[in-house]
């Protein structure tokens, strides 16, 4: 996988903590590999929207990567509920269904961004930096300038 400069929290220089929400174990593992390559830390995982809400309360992640189509409770509703309780929550929707109504609905209900599957690591990396804004600093990639 491509080398990325580690994205750290600017307040304490610690790795960014992620909550990954997807009903697919494969998708969760794939995203976990990507965030590891970004220097991030997996704070928690959930396979549906309801569990995502309790995992958010438990782990207080810096960023949530949230699928849309899931059993029990879909991602957009879960995002809305999380943002109602935690207005500062940063939620990035990650879904294969990327039509405009879905994106607009997610953004209107509190998501900060949208990434379409299959996820390209370089796209997700840029979105994460954008969503974190000044709350993140980026270290030089290993081997950069060598």
């Amino acid at each position: 996988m491509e080398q990325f400069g580690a994205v750290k929290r600017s307040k304490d220089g610690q790795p960014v903590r992620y909550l990954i929400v997807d009903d697919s174990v494969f998708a969760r593992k794939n995203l976990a590999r990507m965030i590891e390559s970004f220097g991030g830390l997996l704070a928690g995982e959930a396979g549906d929207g309801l569990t995502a809400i309790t995992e958010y309360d438990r782990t207080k992640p810096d960023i949530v990567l949230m699928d849309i189509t899931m059993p029990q409770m879909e991602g957009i509703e879960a995002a809305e509920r999380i943002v109602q309780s935690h207005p500062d929550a940063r939620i990035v929707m990650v879904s294969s269904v990327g039509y405009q109504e879905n994106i607009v609905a997610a953004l209107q209900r509190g998501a900060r961004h949208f990434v379409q599957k299959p996820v390209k690591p370089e796209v997700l990396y840029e979105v994460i930096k954008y969503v974190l804004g000044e709350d993140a600093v980026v270290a030089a990639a290993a081997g950069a300038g060598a």
Partner: protein
Amino acid sequence: MKMELIQPFINSADAVLAQGLQCSTAIGSLSMEEEGYRRKGVAAMIALTGDIEGRIIFDLDPETAVRVASKMAGAELPDSDDLVRETACELANQIIGNAVTALNDQGFHFRVHPPTLHTAEEGIRSSEDTEALVMCFETPIGSVFMNIALRYNRRRQGERAATAAS
């Protein structure tokens, strides 16, 4: 089934498989299903409801499924690994999600249901209003099959026509 419904699935499968497997793909065959569906190996099914409804089955023979999952996981997986079946479901989800996105841009509205592992050996036969199309995509690590059985939702079609006429 009209080509306007099929082309987005072809384009999406081509793009998702090429990116996931980091290789080029080719359409090996395209045929109408004449007999009932018979599962080839590891199969994931996704149901669609809305302006167009039906189901799509994404199917790989067991050896191909292991090779595809191993390639995408970046490690050799045993055929007993749950991740093999998970990979089939997620690939189906990505291909169908991307195709539905393109169809939505053409004005069709759907709900995509979460993928489920299709374990039955056989499926329901095609009917007059729900023809099934079988597509085979050739990749360097094996063939990937998609069985698409969709039909226009007549009630929704009537509503769309009425809206257009008013």
